[in-house]
């Protein structure tokens, strides 16, 4: 009947020396190297500290019922302006009767409380003897992120289209996407409300041109929403009215943010630890070699030998 190895344990052989000795110096150096070298290797091989991180979330997007629609005709003195902006003068509205109808629907298909699609249908009466040459639609949106980086902001869906020939209709299918020029600060448990103010509701008039002012102010934001057109189609024909259909989906969006210190450490720790293990093994072998062969002066304490 054969014997099987069931368990084994090591016998500890201690090497002792006084504080001011070569062996102590050697041990100190190897210990320091064991701590520092893995850090240097991990750092120099790039990507040790997590500079950026991202996650996916479908935001809550709602139409704020603020809008500005500018349809330019071939005569620049007769534009059609629909909608409202607080900074618009009363007298500035001309041709408002041509904004026949704006219809808005918000759809939540999977019943999770977040709108999955927005639909805008706009009907414009074209003044006689005029043709629409371009349209600019600004829809106010409420944008909310709720999970990792809470954010509440009022953004815009800007849709711009110029027509080469007189249009009778325009259809667009697109996605509302988040566009960041900088990382979100992502402070835990603090809702970022830096941009939670409506541009269409801004009263202090700076520039002359309301539309330019809104677009410029929006352009200077660090976080904006854009309309990413997937398909669009214009229907030709000089008619007395124009239908504009905008279908916008709200997909999951990538949100870039600056990781917190804990997340940085959580990311760096495994990299460091995995290298420490390797270096520990190497230095242990070196130490074993040095002390076993008595290259440095130290007392050897063997448990079964009496001193």
């Amino acid at each position, binding site marked *: 009947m054969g014997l099987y190895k069931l368990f084994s344990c090591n016998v500890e052989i201690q090497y002792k020396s006084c504080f001011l000795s070569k062996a102590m110096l050697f041990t100190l150096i190897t210990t320091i190297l064991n701590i520092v070298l893995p850090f240097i290797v991990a750092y120099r091989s790039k990507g040790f500290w997590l500079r950026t991180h991202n996650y996916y979330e479908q935001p809550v997007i*709602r139409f704020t019922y603020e809008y500005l629609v500018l349809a330019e005709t071939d005569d620049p003195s007769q534009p059609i302006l629909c909608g409202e902006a607080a900074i618009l*003068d009363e007298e500035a509205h001309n041709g408002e009767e041509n904004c026949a109808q704006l219809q808005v629907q918000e759809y939540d*298909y999977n019943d999770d409380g977040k709108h999955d699609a927005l639909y805008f249908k706009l009907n414009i009466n074209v003044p006689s003897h005029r043709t629409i040459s371009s349209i600019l639609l600004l829809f106010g949106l409420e944008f909310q992120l709720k999970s990792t980086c809470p954010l509440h902001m009022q953004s815009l869906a800007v849709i711009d289209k110029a027509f080469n020939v007189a249009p009778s209709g325009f259809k667009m299918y697109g996605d509302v996407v988040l566009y960041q020029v900088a990382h979100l600060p992502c402070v835990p448990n603090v809702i970022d409300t830096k941009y939670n103010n409506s541009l269409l509701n801004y009263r202090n*008039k700076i520039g*002359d041109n309301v*539309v330019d002012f809104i677009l410029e102010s929006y352009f200077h934001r660090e976080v904006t929403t854009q309309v990413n057109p997937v398909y669009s189609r214009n229907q030709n024909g000089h008619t007395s009215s124009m239908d504009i259909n905008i279908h916008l989906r709200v997909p999951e969006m990538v949100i870039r943010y600056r990781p917190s210190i804990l997340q940085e450490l959580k990311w760096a720790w495994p990299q460091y630890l995995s290298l420490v293990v390797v270096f520990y093994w190497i230095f242990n072998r*070196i130490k074993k070699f040095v002390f076993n062969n008595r290259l440095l002066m130290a007392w050897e304490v063997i448990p079964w030998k009496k001193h």
Partner: protein
Amino acid sequence: MKVIAYLAFTLLSILIQFCVMDLTQEKTELDDEQVAFNGTSHKKKFHELMKDFTQKPHALYYQTLMNNNHRDLDFRPSTKTFTNNSLQRLEISTIISSTIFDELYDDNMSTTEDPFTTESLYTSTEIDNVTEISFFDKNNKTVIKPKVPKKPRNKDCGCDLLYNVCDINCCCDNDCSETEKDIFANCKDAHKKMDEIGNLCYPYEHFFYQENNFVDNLFCIIKTNLPEKRGKDLKKYDIDAVAHSHKWHSEVKSKHTEFQKKPYVYGEPVWVLKDGSIWYIDTPSPTINNYCTGRKPIMFLKNENIKCIVKLKDLEMFKILKTPQEAPCISVTEKSLNSTTLNCSTLHCTNWTIIVCDEIKCVDYNKSLHEPSCTETSCTNLALKLEYVFYYYDSKIINATIKLFSQNISLDVPFMNQEINVRFILTNESIEKVIEVSGNPGYLYGRPLIASTAESNRSLNFFNVTSPHIRYLVQPSNKEGICTSLITENNFVMFGLNKRIKCRYVYHKSIHFQNGTNICNDIESSLEELFGLNNKLYVSPYGNPLDVKDSDWLSIQTNLYEKDITYGQFVTKNSKLRCYNVITRISYIITFADVSKVTIKRENKIVSININVSARNVTLTPEDMSTVLTIDTNFIDGTKPRVYEYAGGPHINIHLPKDFFFPFPSNGIHVTKQSYNLIMLCCVMYLQIK
């Protein structure tokens, strides 16, 4: 063996659990449905239905339900009336066939009453899936009369919208006769699944997100009897929904302030008195596009520069020439505060001064001289650029001037650019006598560079209104393609603006019967004059030259003297003049630095200014004595970065001698230096440890 037995046992227990759950679930639903159910016993109904079965139902039948090879099963609703209150449930269940199965199954398992299944059978037309069960055979078919008596309105039929009229393609509409249903698209289709019918009856958007159910994907389960995942409580609604939802809101637009009898403050409209009532004056403004579509009031102390396009009929100058004479500009004074009447005796009235300016000088408007007039092709004395200047002094507007910059315009294009400036000056001095600095003390972006030609006392000369010397550095600009070098704001070198200007220089003198070199030298000297190189120029290092000493003014360094000598010769054949080494490009390179001691404020000081000229050979003909010039401006920020810079780590270049591995050729195996070192290190360590 034990493991297999264990696994088998587990599977068996899961199976039993599923079966029992199925049963219990159905039972609980039955109990719920009892309340809404009215009338006849369902058990009875079900047994009636079951009578038509020729053989016992078996679960296996349902596995072949999707078989295309069906008999043309014509399922018709029985003449018996049944309540139909379970369509909603149908919509949720996966396939009708499974529901049927459960019901049959339940019945076999001696379940008591089941109103649910029977209802679902009759309210839907999708029963033809169940061919092999043969609920209704041909005999049964003959019993049913073609005309179905009017049934009560099906309350759960979402597509039944026309009252007492059959809706097209609505299979659950009781108003539809069987013949009508036969011609519909989907009621007869044997391959349609129940959920599709459901969609037909409840028309939602075609756009659905895929919901992944982990359990469904794992086991390919036809039906689950898990509780419905519906958090929405249908009976309750959110009372506060109105408060926290967005709605169409009232249109709020900015309103201009009404006239109040008090002295002017910033941002208030400038008032005029016309026909005994008070109005504000306004200017055109491009509210939404670049056309002067809107109008906005001139706000007190708010300088404006408005540019927009207009048609000839909408030109602002026509309005100005009509109105202001009889509408003086008013200021509320202390005297008028005490009186109740509003006229020029109580208010301070200022009549408008209209002056007409051309490129050189300004004169008072004279109707006979400056009246605009148009022919079909062009107009004269049109002012596309106007300037309102208000002098406010001693708490009242003491002078209101309108400057019309008149010019002649051809009517080739329907629109023209109109520019309106509004300026307020808190002085009684003329605007021409007000000297503007370009920053205090450092230069500000977009402000003109302060220059002087004076040999001494340059700072004093700058602030001296009567000084003949130039104040700002001027460079040629393009005016309708031609180089001009007039001392206007358009031609100033602006701080911080990098520019490249191209324009055509035209030499106006005759070139016949002259020496080629003389002409070329004359061209060269006129170019130097155009570029402002004929005078020694000094530039102020700061935007405010008040305390700048003469020695601190920077002299402009040029490389003009390094240029090769200009000479010319006629190419006699075609009488072309070829000038050699004529200046065609001038480049301003201005270096500045932020000398501020604090980080939050910039104080730009010009450190050096260089003008580099480039010459080239130019060929001129008597017909076209012109060449294109280039004027470049570059501002270079020489500020040292504020961040501390650390020296880089020492670079240690350690390498082994080339013949270290002499027997092995070093270029034999291509290894990178790093991996080479790594292998070496490993080898050494391995040997040592061993």
